[in-house]
């Protein structure tokens, strides 16, 4: 039964890296056609955001009052200009950067606190009631209203939009994490760790959290879409970005007066928002199917 092995003749293979699993998941993701479309759109947005400086020669804020409301296809401005003669293409590029950054930061911050609270609520029964009732309280507000409220209190700026969306993401994330913690906590390997005398902190972060990653990743991806949409909505309502900022929602708001003379001012940023939200949603959907087979049916 026991093989004769001496220390010298066996080289312990280096453990496979965790990145192996990520690349495997990515490969499987490519089998979902819609997800591939989503990934391409997200890729384009990332390229636009990173390469904004090189992809256009116009400053998104420089006005050119001699050439206002130029339609797409005009010489030098292939997407046209807005009511102040600013190049739409540059504005679109810098808008991609803003929505990506705002979405990313608010999702990261919201998920961080959501995961923390979810872990605590799921693991400690005495905190569960408190945390979950607080999150119910926040759920009672329609999402955008809550964000409005926060921005109204803090004042309107993009930073405050990030704060508002982060706060608003916390309860839904906490709820998702709590659910997974509740099921993972009952697993025998957690009891095994307790019987070894492991501390709660070690159990929570080394054993429970790694087994809850799938729903967290799915949540973060899907929430990216919500965050981008909310940023634009708030800016559209005049509660986010300053009017001149090339933020997509703000661009639509600025363009709505000129809907009939220069419809491209509304349509271009509108399509951009739609595509990006669509992209994050379909990628999130595919990830959910992939990582969390149990959630598939409830879709």
């Amino acid at each position: 039964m026991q093989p004769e092995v001496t220390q010298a003749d066996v080289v312990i293979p280096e453990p496979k890296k965790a990145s192996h699993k990520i690349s495997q998941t990515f490969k499987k993701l490519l089998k979902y056609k819609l997800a591939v479309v989503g990934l391409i759109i997200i890729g384009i947005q990332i390229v636009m955001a990173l390469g904004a400086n090189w992809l256009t020669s116009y400053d998104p804020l420089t006005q050119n009052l001699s050439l206002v409301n130029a339609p797409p296809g005009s010489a030098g401005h292939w997407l046209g200009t807005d009511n102040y003669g600013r190049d739409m293409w540059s504005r679109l590029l810098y808008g991609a950067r803003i929505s990506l950054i705002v979405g990313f930061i608010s999702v990261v911050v919201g998920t961080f606190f959501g995961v923390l609270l979810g872990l605590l609520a799921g693991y400690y029964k005495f905190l569960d009631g408190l945390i979950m009732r607080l999150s119910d309280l926040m759920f009672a507000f329609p999402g955008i209203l809550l964000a409005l409220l926060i921005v109204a209190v803090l004042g309107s700026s993009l930073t405050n939009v990030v704060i508002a969306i982060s706060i608003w993401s916390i309860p839904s994330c906490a709820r998702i994490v709590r659910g997974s913690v509740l099921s993972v906590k009952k697993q025998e390997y957690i009891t095994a760790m307790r019987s070894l005398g492991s501390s709660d902190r070690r159990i929570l972060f080394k054993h429970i959290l790694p087994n809850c990653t799938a729903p967290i990743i799915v949540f973060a991806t899907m929430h990216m879409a919500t965050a981008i949409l909310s940023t634009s909505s708030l800016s559209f309502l005049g509660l986010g970005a300053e009017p001149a900022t090339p933020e997509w929602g703000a661009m639509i708001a600025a363009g709505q007066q000129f809907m009939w003379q220069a419809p491209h001012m509304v349509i271009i940023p509108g399509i951009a928002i739609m595509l990006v939200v669509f992209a994050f949603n379909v990628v999130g959907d595919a990830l959910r199917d992939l990582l969390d087979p149990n959630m598939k049916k409830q879709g």
Partner: protein
Amino acid sequence: MPTTLFQVKNVKKHYPIKGGILRRTKSEVKAVNGVSLEITKGETLGVVGESGCGKSTLGRAILGLEPLTEGQLIFADQDITQLSRRQLKPFKREMQMIFQDPYASLNPRQRIGAAIEEAIKIHNPMNAKQRREKVLSLLEEVGLKREHYGRFPHEFSGGQRQRIGIARALALQPSFIVCDEAVSALDVSVQAQVLNLLKKLQSKYELTYLFISHDLGVVRYISDRVLVMYLGNMVELAPSEALYENPVHPYTQALLSAIPRTVPNKERERIKLMGEIPSPTDPPKGCAFHTRCPIATELCSQSKPEWRAVGEGHYAACHYVGEELNA
């Protein structure tokens, strides 16, 4: 003179059932209802009983994984019942558990080397290299290979996983191990291997086992003494040989008569118990077994039988022990 390692005094574990708006305790599941034991150093004490008789709860309660409702635990002459989690930590080193389901008892996201190392990390100030060496030698000790160090649990078979569980339990060099249905999930040939491994490790490290199982054959093979439980109560406790050859309690007799024999056609009397096992929420008054006992009388339904000595180290809880039964 054998020394007592672990003393369990009148341990009770009741789970409250809450209901109503105020979540008041409506009733209780009496999972373990008064168990007293003395576990001798170096022995294997088997615990048998049907599902739901409280044997697993007993094991978990002994290890402090479940707070006791009542009772006292004395480990190596120290009362550990009231200790806080921090104070209990040095004792956790001495007491380990091997779990029933080798698939559920290992973290699927953790490499097995890291899983075993973690046990050492929690208690021992060894450096990384020493830890790794220790884990590698443990892996060999339980019949696995050094190459297995960096693999994930899903790459192993059930028997191998159980060996990993054993290695993890051994990592802290405990003196007492609770094996909770440790081989029940394995197929028979692998069961034998794992049982032999447990025996080998016991003699090498002077381990004491509390071996919980519903499999009477397995318990007979590994145990020095056997405790039979029914509905959270102790029914009979005897040295292995005495219990299997000469069971005195009617429940033990019925249980043993249900073991399939290797000689077919051999005449034997099977004692068939009628009815279902009563609910532990509302156990029968008097002797817990009287509702199904073939020899129960009025007395049994009224008073709970005392724990009586029937032979050397042989005890049973029955009013009629030593009378009609032993005739």
